[in-house]
C-alpha cells in the first residue's frame, strides 16, 4: 500500500486490487492523467511473498484513512474478495474517517479510476466523481462498439436481480413521507430491494432503510433505479412502480412550499392592541401568554456501568417510544384521518431503521453509554440530511431529531413533551396533531393560533377542553407572560388589556365556568329541548376503557364503536371469541345503554398486515369500509356473528360503514341473515343500520329508509365526499365544513326519508360535538348526537337551551344559505352567544 497525500479537501480515491502491481499501476496511470492534488492510495495484494495475490481488509482500511477527506472517499475495486474486503474495511474505519462518506463504486477499475481522479481534481462532489467513474467506459465503447453504446448505459445492474427505472414526479421529491411509503411498501414483500438515484449517480442503498432512502436526495424529475431479488421480486417492483405512478401517495402536496395562509397575508407580527381572528371555541378567558417549550435534556457522558445493560435500555426505550407513537397515531387517525396520522408512520419507520439503531448500538461501549450513543447516532443521521442543502431534507432532519429526543427523554426518565411552563393562554402558529394529543389540559386557559380554521385541531381541542379559542389571528409577538384577553365568541384577542376590560371578561368567564360546571353536574341527566324533544347524546369510543369513560362523562349510550382497534397492529385477525368477549365487556360497561357497533372500517390506505390488498390509486375512493367487508366475507361474517351473540343479551345495534348503493345493503343484509342462522337466530329487536358518508346514499335515502332500521351520519366523510375537500388539508379547512348548506341538504334529505318510514337519524361525526351545529342538526330532525365524551356535558346543555320548533326554522333558513360561514353566524346568533 502506498499513499500519496498532496492536500486539499478534494474527494479521496482508493484503488483496490488483488495485485499490488495492478493497483500501483492504476494509481500511476491515473496520476498521469491529471488531478495532481487528489489524494490517491493503492491497496493491492496481500502480505505473503509466496502468494501475494489477494486483498486485505486492513490494508484497505488504512488506505481509506490515509486519503481521508471530509468530502468523502471513492473506492474502486477489481473483483470478488476485493469487494467483500472493502465492505469489511468500512466496519473498522476509525474517526475522523466515517463509513457513511465512503462510496464503494462499481465502475471499471482502470477507466473508472482515471475518470474519478480527473473529476475529483476539479473539486467535484463524491456523487459527481462516482458518476464520472461509472461513465468511464463510454469513450471506449463509443470507439469500439458505437452501436451498443446507447444500450450499455443502462446496464450496471449485474447480479442485483431485475431492475426498473422510474422518474420521480413528486413536487418535493422523495422526502420523508413518500420515502416512508416506499419503505413500507418494500417491507410487505419477501425481496431484497435496493434503490439508487441515477440522476446524482448514487450507489444503491437498501430500500428498507428510511434514512438511506431519504438520504439519496431524490428530487422532482430525478430518475431512480430499483433492483429487486428474491421470491417476491417481481411483485415488489410492480408495487413500487404503481406507487411511483401515484407520486408515492403525495399528490395532495402543493408544488411549492405553501404560501402564507390566505386569511393571514404576510402581516407584521402584532405586539399590542386588539387582534381580530376567527372565534373557534366560545367563551372568554384572561391569562398570561404561554408558548410551548421543550424541556432541556442533559445527556450524561462517561463510561456506563455495563454496556450490555445500556444496549438493553436503549432497545427498551425505543420500544416504549414506538408504543407511544403507535397509540398517538391511532388517536389521531381516529380523530383526524390518515393524512394527519402519516407523520407518525414516518416517525415509526425512523424507529425501525436498522441503520440508525445499529449505529447507536455499536457506539455503546466501555466509554459511551446509551444516551450519549443514541444522541450521537441521531445527530449523525440528521446531519446527513442537512448536508443535502434542500429545505425539505432539513425537515427530515427535524423528524429524526424529534424522534431522537423522545427516545433520549425516555432513557433519561424525562417527559419530552413540549409544555407550557405555567397555566395560561397557549400561543402557537398552529398546533400539530401530536402537540394536541400531548397537551396538559390543566394548563390551557385559552388557545390563540396564528393560522388554522374553526375545523383545525387547535379548535377541536379547545372545544374538547371547553376553553375559548381564537384561530387565524395572525402572528403575535408578545413576551411570555404578557396578559391576553381571549374572547372565543367574538374572535378577538386583546394584548395587555386595561383593568376594566379584564374585570368584565372575568365576570363573563366566571359565568361561563358556572354554566359549564352546572352542565357537568347535569351531564348524566337526559337532554330534552325546551319544547320536549328528547335527544340522545352519546359517545364515540374505541375501547373498553373508553366505554367506562363515556358513562362517566354522562353519555346516554354509544353512537359509534370503532372496532378497528381489534384489527390494527397485529399479524393475524382477532378470533371470533376475542371479538365477542371485547364487545361483551363494552356492552356491560355501558350498563344497559344502547351500543352502535360499526363493523371494520379500513381501506387501502391502511392495509391490514394479515389481509394484503393491491395498492390503490386513491384509497379514499377505493375498497374500504363495507366494500372491504364484502370483498373479504369471512372477516365480516366473523365480526357479525360475534356482534350478534352479544346482541342476544345486550342492546347492540349493528352499523355498516361506507355503503353507497342499495345492492351493497342487500348483500350484507343477506350475510347478516346467514350469520344469524349459524348462531341460532336473529336477536329480537335487533337494529341494523348504515352510516351516511357517501352522497349517493343520502340521495337515495328514501329507498334505504324502507329497509334499514336507522341512519347515522358520518359528517366527516360526508363533508369530504360532498365538497371534494380533504379535511386534513389546511388550505381547504374552510371548505371542508360540515355546516355547508350542501352537506346540510343531504342530511335534510336523509332525515325526511327516515321520518316517513319511522326510522331514527343520528350524527357521529365531529359536527355532533360542535355546539354551533347542535341547533341546526336538531332542527333538521336528528335525534341522536354521538361525540367525543368530553363534549357531552356542553352539548346536553345546548340541547336543553333550545326550542326544537325554533331550531327547525333555523335549519330551514340554513338550507337556503350559500356558505358554512353564514350558517355558523346564524347558529351563533340563535344560541345568543
Amino acid at each position, binding site marked *: 500500500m502506498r499513499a500519496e497525500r498532496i492536500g486539499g479537501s478534494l474527494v479521496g480515491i482508493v484503488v483496490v486490487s488483488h495485485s499490488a502491481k495492478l493497483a500501483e499501476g492504476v494509481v500511476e496511470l491515473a496520476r498521469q492523467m491529471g488531478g495532481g492534488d487528489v489524494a490517491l492510495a493503492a491497496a493491492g495484494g496481500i*502480505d505473503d511473498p509466496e502468494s501475494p495475490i*489477494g*486483498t486485505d*481488509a486492513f490494508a484497505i482500511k488504512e488506505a481509506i484513512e490515509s486519503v481521508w477527506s471530509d468530502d468523502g472517499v471513492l473506492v474502486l475495486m477489481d473483483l470478488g474478495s476485493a469487494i467483500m*474486503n472493502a465492505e*469489511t474495511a468500512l466496519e473498522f474505519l476509525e474517526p475522523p474517517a466515517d463509513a457513511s462518506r465512503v462510496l464503494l463504486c462499481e465502475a471499471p477499475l482502470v477507466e473508472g479510476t482515471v475518470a474519478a481522479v480527473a473529476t475529483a481534481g476539479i473539486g467535484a462532489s463524491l456523487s459527481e466523481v462516482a458518476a464520472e467513474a461509472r461513465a468511464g467506459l463510454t469513450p471506449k465503447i463509443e470507439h469500439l462498439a458505437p452501436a451498443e453504446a446507447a444500450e450499455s448505459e443502462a446496464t450496471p445492474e449485474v447480479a442485483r436481480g431485475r431492475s426498473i427505472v422510474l422518474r420521480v414526479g413528486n413536487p418535493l421529491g422523495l422526502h420523508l413521507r413518500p420515502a416512508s411509503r416506499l419503505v413500507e411498501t418494500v417491507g410487505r414483500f419477501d425481496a431484497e430491494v435496493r434503490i439508487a438515484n441515477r440522476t446524482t449517480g448514487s450507489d444503491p442503498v437498501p430500500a428498507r432503510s428510511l434514512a438511506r432512502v431519504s438520504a439519496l436526495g431524490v428530487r422532482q424529475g430525478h430518475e431512480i433505479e430499483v433492483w429487486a431479488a428474491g421470491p417476491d421480486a417481481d411483485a415488489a417492483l410492480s408495487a413500487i412502480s404503481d406507487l411511483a405512478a401515484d407520486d408515492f401517495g403525495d399528490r395532495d402536496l402543493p408544488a411549492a412550499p405553501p404560501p402564507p395562509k390566505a386569511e393571514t397575508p404576510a402581516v407584521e407580527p402584532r405586539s399590542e392592541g386588539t387582534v381580530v381572528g376567527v372565534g373557534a371555541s366560545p367563551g372568554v378567558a384572561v391569562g398570561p401568554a404561554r408558548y410551548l417549550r421543550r424541556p432541556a435534556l442533559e445527556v450524561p457522558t462517561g463510561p456506563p456501568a455495563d454496556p450490555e445493560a445500556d444496549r438493553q435500555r436503549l432497545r427498551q426505550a425505543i420500544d416504549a417510544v414506538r408504543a407511544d407513537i403507535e397509540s398517538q397515531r391511532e388517536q389521531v387517525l381516529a380523530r383526524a384521518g390518515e393524512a394527519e396520522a402519516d407523520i407518525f408512520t414516518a416517525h415509526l419507520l425512523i424507529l425501525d431503521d436498522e441503520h440508525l439503531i445499529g449505529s447507536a448500538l455499536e457506539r455503546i461501549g466501555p466509554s459511551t453509554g446509551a444516551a450519549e450513543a443514541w444522541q450521537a447516532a441521531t445527530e449523525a443521521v440528521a446531519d446527513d440530511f442537512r448536508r443535502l442543502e434542500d429545505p425539505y431534507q432539513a425537515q427530515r432532519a427535524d423528524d429524526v431529531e424529534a424522534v431522537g429526543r423522545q427516545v433520549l427523554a425516555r432513557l433519561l426518565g424525562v417527559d419530552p413533551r413540549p409544555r407550557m411552563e405555567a397555566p395560561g393562554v397557549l400561543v402557537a402558529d398552529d398546533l400539530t396533531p401530536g402537540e394536541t394529543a400531548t397537551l396538559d389540559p390543566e394548563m390551557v386557559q385559552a388557545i390563540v393560533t396564528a393560522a388554522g380554521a374553526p375545523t383545525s385541531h387547535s379548535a377541536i381541542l379547545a372545544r374538547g377542553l371547553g376553553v375559548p379559542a381564537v384561530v387565524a389571528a395572525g402572528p403575535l409577538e408578545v413576551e411570555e407572560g404578557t396578559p391576553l384577553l381571549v374572547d372565543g365568541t367574538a374572535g378577538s384577542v386583546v394584548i395587555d388589556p386595561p383593568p376594566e376590560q379584564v374585570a368584565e371578561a372575568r365576570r363573563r368567564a366566571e359565568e361561563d365556568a358556572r354554566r359549564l360546571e352546572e352542565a357537568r353536574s347535569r351531564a348524566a341527566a337526559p337532554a330534552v329541548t325546551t319544547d320536549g324533544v328528547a335527544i340522545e347524546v352519546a359517545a364515540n369510543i374505541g375501547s373498553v376503557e373508553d366505554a367506562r369513560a363515556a358513562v362517566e362523562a354522562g353519555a346516554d349510550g354509544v353512537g359509534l364503536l370503532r372496532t378497528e382497534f381489534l384489527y390494527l397492529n397485529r399479524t393475524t385477525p382477532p378470533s371470533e371469541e376475542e371479538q365477542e368477549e371485547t364487545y361483551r365487556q363494552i356492552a356491560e360497561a355501558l350498563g344497559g345503554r344502547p351500543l352502535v357497533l360499526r363493523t371494520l372500517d379500513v381501506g387501502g390506505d391502511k392495509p391490514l398486515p394479515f389481509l394484503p390488498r393491491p395498492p390503490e390509486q386513491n384509497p379514499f375512493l377505493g375498497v374500504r369500509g363495507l366494500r372491504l367487508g364484502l370483498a373479504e366475507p369471512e372477516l365480516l361474517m366473523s365480526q357479525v356473528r360475534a356482534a350478534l351473540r352479544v346482541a342476544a343479551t345486550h342492546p347492540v345495534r349493528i352499523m355498516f360503514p361506507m355503503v353507497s348503493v342499495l345492492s351493497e345493503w342487500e348483500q350484507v343484509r343477506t350475510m347478516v341473515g346467514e350469520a344469524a342462522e349459524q348462531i341460532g337466530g336473529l336477536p329480537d329487536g335487533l337494529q341494523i343500520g348504515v352510516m351516511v358518508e357517501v352522497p349517493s346514499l343520502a340521495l337515495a335515502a328514501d329507498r334505504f329508509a324502507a329497509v334499514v332500521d336507522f341512519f347515522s351520519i358520518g359528517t366527516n366523510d360526508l363533508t369530504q365526499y360532498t365538497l371534494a375537500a380533504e379535511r386534513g388539508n389546511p388550505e381547504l379547512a374552510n371548505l371542508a365544513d360540515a355546516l355547508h348548506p350542501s352537506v346540510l341538504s343531504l342530511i335534510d334529505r336523509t332525515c325526511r326519508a327516515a321520518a316517513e318510514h319511522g326510522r331514527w337519524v343520528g350524527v357521529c361525526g365531529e359536527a355532533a360535538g360542535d355546539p354551533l351545529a347542535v341547533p341546526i342538526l336538531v332542527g333538521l330532525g336528528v335525534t341522536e348526537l354521538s361525540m367525543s365524551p368530553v363534549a357531552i356535558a356542553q352539548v346536553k346543555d345546548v340541547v336543553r337551551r333550545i326550542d326544537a320548533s325554533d331550531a327547525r326554522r333555523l335549519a330551514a333558513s340554513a338550507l337556503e344559505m350559500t356558505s358554512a360561514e353564514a350558517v355558523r353566524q346564524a347558529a351563533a346568533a340563535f344560541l345568543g352567544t
Partner: protein
Amino acid sequence: MNSVGLEEVLAWLREAAARIEEQKEYLTQLDSAIGDADHGINMNRGFKAALERLEANPPEDIAAALKSVAMALIGKVGGASGPLYGTMFMEMAKAIDGKERLEAADVAAAFRAGIDGIKARGKAEEGDKTMIDALEPAYAALQEAVASGAGVGEAIAAAADAAARGMEATIPLVARKGRASYLGERSAGHQDPGATSSHLLLAAAAEAWGS
C-alpha cells in the same frame, strides 16, 4: 460431551487448522477447476495466523478466541473466504459473548448467527454453489439434534454429516456467486471449494468434541 468450554473450542480450532493444512492441496485443486486456485493456500495462511494469534495472546474466553480467529482471517486470508469466514467467526463471537460453556443450543445459535453473517456479507443463498450449501443443511441437522435433546458432541457430528452431503450436492450445481460464476454452466460437475472447507471446519469440530 454435553457442553464445551474454552479448552474444547481451542482444540477444535487447532484441529481445523491441522485439517486445512493437510487438505491445502486438495482445496486448491478444487479451486483451480472453477476458481482462482488459491482457496487452500488462503485458508491455510489464515488459520495459521489465527493459531499464532491465539498463542501470542491467549484468549480469556470463548468469545475472545473466536474474535481473534475472525480478525486473523479478515486480515490474512486474502481471498473472499477471509471476510466471509471472518464475519462468521465474528458473529459467532457476538452470539455467545460472556458464556463460559456452550450447550448444544448455544452452539446452534452461534452457528445460525455465523451463517447469517456470511449470507449478509456474500449475498449468497442455498443453491448458489457456495459455502452456504454445506452450512445450511448442517445447521438444519444441528437444530434437529438439539431439538431431540442431543449433547454437543452428537449434535455437531450430525451437522458434520449433513455438511458432507451438502458439499457433495454442490457438484451438479451451476455457480451463481464468486469467481466460479464467471464460468456459468461450465462450473457444473465440480465440487465447490468453499462448501468443502466449510465441511472441514465442521468435521474438525465433530472430531474435537466427539464424546
